[in-house]
């Protein structure tokens, strides 16, 4: 089953900035989005499904353990539920649709077993909720070579060298684990969501702005859940350490 994936520019920026701020460690985060465009009724998932990634929620900058992942997912879900209640205009279909990650080492293109396990739990959660169809979550892996080219502003309008690749949860992920050499199939990630920003929102233009933000001194900082935990009780009141929103990222588009 092939999905068409579209990325919102803010989700893209948050992923890249999270990788920049934690450039020497692995990073992990949640992808939030919708499998149906706003205003349309839910359709059974088929070959023409569009999965729109609307937001990226940074979770940690170390290897994810169950308590951190579990609490991160629960807080994110509560945040989405809260947004639906307070904002009557928001899409009622926003949900956790996948995971993003970047490995610690340059050239390490592997997606490690724990990421597939996280995707499986996301899938089983949604399959339980929406019993009429099987939801296929995605993982976006930030690739060091592509990321380097993105920083050099070599990304083209088609999204080559945008900094990451997207994969779907394979049906036989358990079999692949045991094989050792995995061939994860990349899913083509289409152009950014067309929206109020207009026709200038293509991969080339947006990635150039994101590259500038990453290379600023100091760079635009993106906080994750682990940053909040490291800040301890005294750090909880820091309003700018808002890892669920990271609204400071929106300033990139004002330039």
């Amino acid at each position: 089953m092939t999905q068409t994936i579209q990325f919102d520019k803010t989700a893209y920026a948050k992923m890249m900035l999270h990788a920049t701020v934690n450039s020497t460690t692995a990073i992990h985060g949640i992808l939030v989005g919708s499998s149906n465009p706003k205003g349309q009724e839910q359709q059974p998932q088929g070959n023409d499904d569009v999965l729109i990634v609307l937001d990226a929620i940074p979770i940690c900058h170390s290897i994810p353990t169950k308590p951190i992942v579990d609490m991160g997912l629960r807080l994110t879900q509560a945040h989405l539920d809260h947004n639906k209640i307070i904002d009557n205009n928001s899409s009622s279909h926003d949900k956790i649709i996948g995971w993003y990650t970047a490995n610690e080492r340059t050239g390490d293109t592997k997606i490690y077993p724990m990421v597939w396990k996280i995707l499986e739990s996301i899938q089983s959660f949604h399959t339980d909720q929406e019993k009429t169809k099987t939801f296929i979550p995605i993982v976006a892996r930030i690739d060091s070579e592509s990321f380097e080219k993105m920083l050099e502003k070599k990304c083209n309008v088609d999204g080559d060298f945008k900094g990451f690749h997207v994969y779907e949860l394979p049906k036989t992920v358990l079999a692949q684990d045991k094989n050792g050499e995995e061939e994860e199939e990349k899913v083509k990630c289409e152009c950014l969501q067309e929206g109020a920003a207009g026709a200038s929102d293509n991969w080339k233009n947006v990635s150039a702005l994101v590259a500038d933000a990453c290379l600023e001194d100091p760079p635009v900082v993106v906080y994750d859940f682990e940053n909040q935990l490291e800040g301890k009780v005294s750090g909880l009141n820091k309003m700018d350490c808002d890892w669920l929103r990271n609204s400071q990222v929106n300033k990139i588009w004002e330039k």
Partner: protein
Amino acid sequence: MASTTIAKMDLDALLKDSSKSPLTILEYIHDHKLHEPAIVLKLGIPLRKANLAPSQLLSVLEQIIIAALHQKKIELASETLTQIKASTGANSLRYRKLLALCLESAGDFEASLGIYNDMLSDNKSNVYALKRKYAILRSQLKDLEARECLNDYLEQNASDAPAWVEMAKSCFEQGDYKGAAFCYEEIVLSSPMDTGVHCTLGELYVTIGGKDNYVLARKHFAQCLELEKGCIRAMFGLVSATESYLDLMECQLSSSGSGKKRGKDSCWDEQDVELVRDLKAYGVEHLIKSYKGTNMSGLVETILSNSEN
């Protein structure tokens, strides 16, 4: 870290003091293990041809090579290395170390590995060679060989906590959480007062799963909170561990079919279960209290009150 800051401040004072010779400053940088490649090159390059005692000259040349490699000036490093070779010969251990470092910087990892393997065949306890070999294998993504190399190192240096952290990282990546927990058990022996280590170990046991591991996990989270009352990560961990324990209990009791309650025939001790409930309530209460007044207090209350239902 504080001593490094003080050393750097003293270095600034030394640099401003015109009565201090470049050699004195270079010795100061070397003795305090400061990372100042630009300063080393600026002061050291003129000294290459200076009339110094042989041991002093070799020390300066060695510092210049390392600084040049940090600044990616491989040609300068190579020239300086040739100067050392002329003085010490090619069989000197220190020369071979520097040669291997230069080869690593130039990207010739096979040649540098060859040198480290030679060093290890002369002396298999050569800590430096083992560490560099591990670093090369890990950077080349040769995880199996890197792990074997690190294993060899740890067999001889079991008290090296950072090495155990490296091994734990390698285990994590492969999904070997039991292996990672073993590594962190070694680390906690040398750092029993480190809250981060207890927290990580607790999280690992929750990740591995199973009744006994949930019990171990809550002990580590409790110890973490004993050492640092405001550790939110440990509070979340404690809630997670106790919830997992209770979920497992409910699952096992309901799947036993007869609706058998906890009792003396059950493996779930009533007192222990009550303790777990109390610990969970403690974690929930303290988390809600810690987040009170922040913009996330509502969300935290929501997820924790849902978990109580």
